[in-house]
């Protein structure tokens, strides 16, 4: 399955995921504490520069991810211009773009395996209070494996419907889709049990 990690290697790609996540938490907290526009303009400009440094391909991918926020940017800008609070609107827009931009930066520079390793490290202490961390790891692997498999089955069901009816399938395939998912789950559970189950 394709993750949102950028194929472009950056200097931050080699940093430990835990460090990047900690820095992101601190940066996001500071962004929400500070209210002055000059600070937000500078931080936004620095974030934009960080996106540009690894090259045009990386910057384009970052801009594409941020582009999804345009309805909110337009809404906040128009609203605050109408009520005559343009400065406050600019702070909200810049903070939103910078916070999402920084978070996306961590996602783009951290591989899926590094992220999952960090999650497993974070949940490791919970094993002492009874959480089966092996089941969590197995659950993650199962979802990663089954999402494309289910998507393929959904496509096959849609095509089967289209071959029989001129109307769009849409929600009508959801029931057979769910039945297929449940049948798959039962088969996989049996296979897992046959191979020793979730206990090490």
């Amino acid at each position, binding site marked *: 399955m394709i993750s949102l990690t950028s194929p472009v290697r950056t200097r931050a790609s080699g940093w430990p995921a835990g460090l990047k996540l900690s820095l992101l938490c601190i940066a996001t907290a500071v962004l929400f504490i500070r209210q002055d526009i000059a600070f937000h303009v500078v931080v936004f400009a620095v974030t934009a520069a960080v996106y540009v440094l690894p090259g045009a391909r990386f910057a384009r991918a970052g801009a594409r991810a941020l582009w999804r926020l345009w309805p909110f940017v337009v809404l906040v800008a128009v609203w605050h211009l109408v009520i005559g609070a343009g400065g406050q609107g600019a702070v909200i827009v810049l903070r939103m773009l910078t916070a999402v931009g920084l978070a996306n930066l961590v996602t783009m520079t951290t591989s899926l395996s590094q992220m999952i390793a960090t999650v497993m490290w974070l949940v490791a202490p919970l094993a002492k209070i009874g959480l089966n961390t092996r089941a969590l790891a197995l659950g993650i692997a199962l979802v990663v494996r089954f999402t494309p498999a*289910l998507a393929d089955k959904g496509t096959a069901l849609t095509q089967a419907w289209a071959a029989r009816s001129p109307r769009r399938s849409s929600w009508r395939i959801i029931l057979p889709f769910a039945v297929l998912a449940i049948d798959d789950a039962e088969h996989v559970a049996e296979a897992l049990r046959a191979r020793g189950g979730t206990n090490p």
Partner: protein
Amino acid sequence: MERNLTLIALFAALIAALGLIPQLTLAFGVPITAQSLGVMLCGTVLGAKRGALAVLLFVLLVAVGLPLLAGGRGGLGVFVSPTAGFVIGFPFAAFITGLIVENWRNGPLAMVAGVASVIGGIVVLYAFGISGLAWALQKPVAEAALLVTAFIPGDLIKAVLAGLITAALARARPASVLSRA
């Protein structure tokens, strides 16, 4: 244990796969995706605890960078965007939906699951979503609520579908509807 785990993982994958179904557009131009229907189904089929765990697993995989949300969205940016409240509210929505189906046993399953989906998948989910919007956009809750009212008719349709699909699943695969096991 293995059966619970695979059902939880498969329903997490089902939410992701439902995000790939092309969106419908309501008569007045509002797009709806099938993804929150997946969240409702997690509660109505798997019950409170397992349903919430399935959705939590889905949200965790979105956080670690898989593009599983409708439109190929994912990553940590989702959790600081204005719609973060909806994603954070997903597991709570599934939990409340499942809790209602587990405890309200003296009614037709389609109706019970439909009502539970309205309460969990709309009331609870929108409480989180609207709070998140109000916080990110620094707007009063009432104004943030106005921004999302257009999506409620679509979600009501999904709640009705969740009820009908759960009842049909209970007939097709009764042992797998864990909320009524």
